[in-house]
């Protein structure tokens, strides 16, 4: 009996070893050079992959590869440059005439015309199509007919969009918006081929666009293989043979796979690995600022938090947070302490400026004084709410609370309030159930100072979750949008930001960096201001 058992053990052990070594081969292949395939980590997109329905990074990655719009944001500077737009003319910042470049096609051979854009935008805006980014078309005249706030749509298309020629169309906005053309680089404004409308299900299972890559195969939830499209007419042709996006159940596993040499690119280094990343990857680790800011919002809908004089309390709380220490110890410098409500990726010309000043500097004594002058924390204790499921929010919320408690010399001034899932958290935020400050994050849609201020702090704006409101701020934003001179418009936005600071409508915490790591097989890897890898420029050795 004893012998038999031993034999079984030995057989089993060898079987395990044999099978294990047999699967050690490499299938990421595809050779090197210009035809080499890059494998990259991916997460399952949350919504069906349609340009106007994708509002998160994972689906956005694919759109950035298979679509090109009227404008394209420079991967380094974020500047909006003409892509398919021959020219965009306006005399009054309300009526725009757009000419689409000739000679562009979709990868299925269909020509990209003015109609491709108008049809796509009308589809994106229409209520019955359930597009989550529909509000991007909200400035176009007739949007309220196809997407009413209540009831059924009364029109099929927006009256402000008109095709005037094979390659030209006109857009009429409901109000002046001088920087509107800059928004057109956003994926929601991509053109769509007729195939999208004629066989929608087939298109969804294998999307067709006009970008440098085409979808070779797509098995939902696990993998998408993109191939370089050799017929691509643009200047930014792909420098590699294709990109294989692999869905990972956990970004830790993706990172492990990278270090084991089975994966070429990870564009989200997990927080738990930040300590080892320098040792593991050396200079193959990228950590650059992205257009993301994190803030603390206040429940202005709650009378306890909306009394006159409380701006001193909010300013005091802001000064009680030691941003330098938290970004260094908790985030390993993957966050940059905030000095305004925008992002460094805008650059000085785009409106990034130290507006916050002393209010964003740690000063315990001043903080204590201001909080007292502002009437103290309502109820004696404030709870900072956050979702505990993703994003390691617990660590920094606890740190922020510790910092506040220490500065105010009061152990009970601040505690964290975890909410189980993101969906539940968002539910409590939007239904205004939170009785204290809560975490907020904003990833820009396009590199424009307007995008950091208007959706978040304009009265009743779509993402103004705390319901902060200021007539002066609203007026300055309106003036800025109507100002045709971009430099002057930026100045007005900064004045508006000053109002936001004086009332401390939200506490800016830090700007988030994009982080990525790559294997020795690839070079020329970079992240754009949206923290998405610039896939078409990656070279395979």
């Amino acid at each position, binding site marked *: *009996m004893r012998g038999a*058992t031993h034999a*079984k*053990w030995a057989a089993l052990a060898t079987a*395990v*070893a044999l*099978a*294990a*070594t*047999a*699967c*050690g081969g490499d299938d990421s292949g595809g050779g090197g050079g210009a035809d080499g395939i890059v494998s990259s980590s991916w997460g*399952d997109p*949350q*919504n*069906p992959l349609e340009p106007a329905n994708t*509002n998160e990074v994972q689906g956005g990655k694919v759109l950035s590869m298979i679509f090109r719009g009227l404008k394209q944001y420079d991967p380094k500077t974020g500047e909006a440059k003409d892509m398919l737009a021959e020219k965009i003319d306006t005399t009054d910042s309300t009526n725009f005439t757009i000419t689409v470049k000739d000679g562009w096609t979709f990868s299925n051979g269909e020509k990209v015309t003015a109609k491709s854009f108008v049809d796509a935008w009308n589809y994106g805006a229409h*209520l*019955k199509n*359930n*597009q*989550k980014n*529909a*509000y991007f078309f909200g400035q176009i005249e007739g949007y309220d007919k196809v*997407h009413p*706030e209540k009831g059924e749509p009364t029109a099929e298309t927006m009256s402000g969009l008109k095709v005037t020629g094979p390659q030209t169309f006109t857009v009429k906005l409901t109000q002046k918006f001088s920087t509107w053309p800059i928004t057109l680089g956003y994926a929601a404004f991509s053109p769509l081929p007729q195939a999208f409308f004629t066989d929608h299900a087939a298109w*969804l299972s294998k999307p067709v666009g006009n970008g440098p890559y085409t979808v070779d195969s797509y*098995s*939902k*939830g*696990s*993998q998408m293989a993109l191939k370089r499209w050799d017929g691509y007419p643009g200047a930014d042709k792909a420098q590699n043979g294709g990109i294989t996006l*692999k*869905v990972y*159940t*956990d970004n830790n*596993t*993706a990172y*492990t*796979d990278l*270090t*084991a040499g*089975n994966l070429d690119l990870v564009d989200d280094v997990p927080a738990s690995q930040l300590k080892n990343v320098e040792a593991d990857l050396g200079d193959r680790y990228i950590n650059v600022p992205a257009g993301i800011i994190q803030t603390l919002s206040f429940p202005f809908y709650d009378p306890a938090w909306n009394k006159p004089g409380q701006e001193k309390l909010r300013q005091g709380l802001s000064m009680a947070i030691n941003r330098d220490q938290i970004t260094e110890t908790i985030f390993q410098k993957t966050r940059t302490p905030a000095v305004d409500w925008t992002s460094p990726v805008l650059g000085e010309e785009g409106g990034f400026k130290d507006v916050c000043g002393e209010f964003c500097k740690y000063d315990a004594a001043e903080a204590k004084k201001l909080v007292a002058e502002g009437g103290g924390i309502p109820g004696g204790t404030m709870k900072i709410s956050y979702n505990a*499921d993703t994003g390691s929010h617990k660590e920094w919320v606890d740190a922020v609370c510790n910092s506040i408690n220490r500065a105010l010399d009061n152990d009970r001034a601040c505690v964290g309030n975890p909410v*189980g*899932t*993101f*969906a*539940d*958290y*968002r*539910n*409590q935020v*939007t*239904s205004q159930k939170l009785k204290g400050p809560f975490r*907020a*994050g904003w990833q820009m849609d396009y590199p424009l100072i307007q995008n950091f201020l208007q959706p978040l702090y304009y009265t009743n704006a*779509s*993402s103004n*979750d705390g319901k902060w409101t200021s007539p002066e701020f609203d007026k300055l934003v309106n003036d800025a949008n109507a100002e045709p001179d971009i430099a002057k418009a930026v100045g007005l936005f900064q004045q508006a930001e000053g109002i936001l600071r004086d009332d401390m409508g939200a506490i800016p915490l830090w700007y988030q960096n994009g982080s990525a790591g790559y294997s020795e097989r690839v070079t020329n890897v970079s992240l754009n201001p949206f923290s998405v890898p610039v896939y078409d420029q990656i070279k395979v050795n």
Partner: protein
Amino acid sequence: MGRYVIRRLLQMIPVFFGATLLIFLMVNVMGDPIAGLCGDRQCDPATAAQLEKEFGLDKPVWQQYLTYMGNVFTGDFGTAFNGQEVTELMANAFPVTIRLTLVAIFFEIVIGISLGVLTGLKRGHPVDTTVLLLTLVVIAIPTFVTGLLLQLLLGVKWGWIKPAVSTDAPLDELIVPGLVLASVSLAYVTRLTRTSIAENKRADYVRTAVAKGLPRHRVITRHLLRNSLIPVVTFIGTDVGALMGGAIVTERIFNIHGVGYQLYQGILRQNTQTVVGFVTVLVLVFLVANLLVDLLYAVLDPRIRYA
């Protein structure tokens, strides 16, 4: 026996409805699933209302449950938020997890029972003590520690396996994850078998068999093992369901796109259709496994007969 099976099958009906209703209520209590769909910004109210209508979330919960159960019986498990049919998700996820579970059960049976018999026959021997200590260690260490450790050592340091299982999840790539998933149960199977064997070794019928002059291997396999296996079979049977549902940790570590992964995603995104659909199937698996265990008793021990 036939009547017993029918009675058991009938008992399964309330359990099935109760379990699914509980899950349905739990997922719904967590709040509005649409709120998380638009990211860090509020869905515009019109789109949100339209989505709620489409997913049937605008009706009261009891009505949603009735509609849902009605659809389930026609094989329609609804649509996940990313536009995929839940049945399609199941068709992708279940084969993978079933394969993983089979690998785990295989290890439980082969390694667990062998070690159990070995130690049961050699009580107090150094081999026995060693195995007992080892099982204690395995039970004490959480699965994610074993998993991450094996992944790091075998996958990254020594390069024997790939740290992440590929999309198709072939059998050979599932050996290490299967072992990790099985580890804790395996230790229990070993201990259960050991105790059972040690107890029955002194039983009259074993002494009789030995006295009759039967060969040692026949005494052990036909007489001793057969009677000692009843508690072990019970454990392994109920473990089938537990393994399938509890694979969340293992599947996450090794990048296996199975039931655990889909459930995890479903819970994070608060996708009622996915969560309830998968749990419904898991409940069925659990019930069937338990029924099979009960029927196996009669095969193992003819004295156990059900009226």
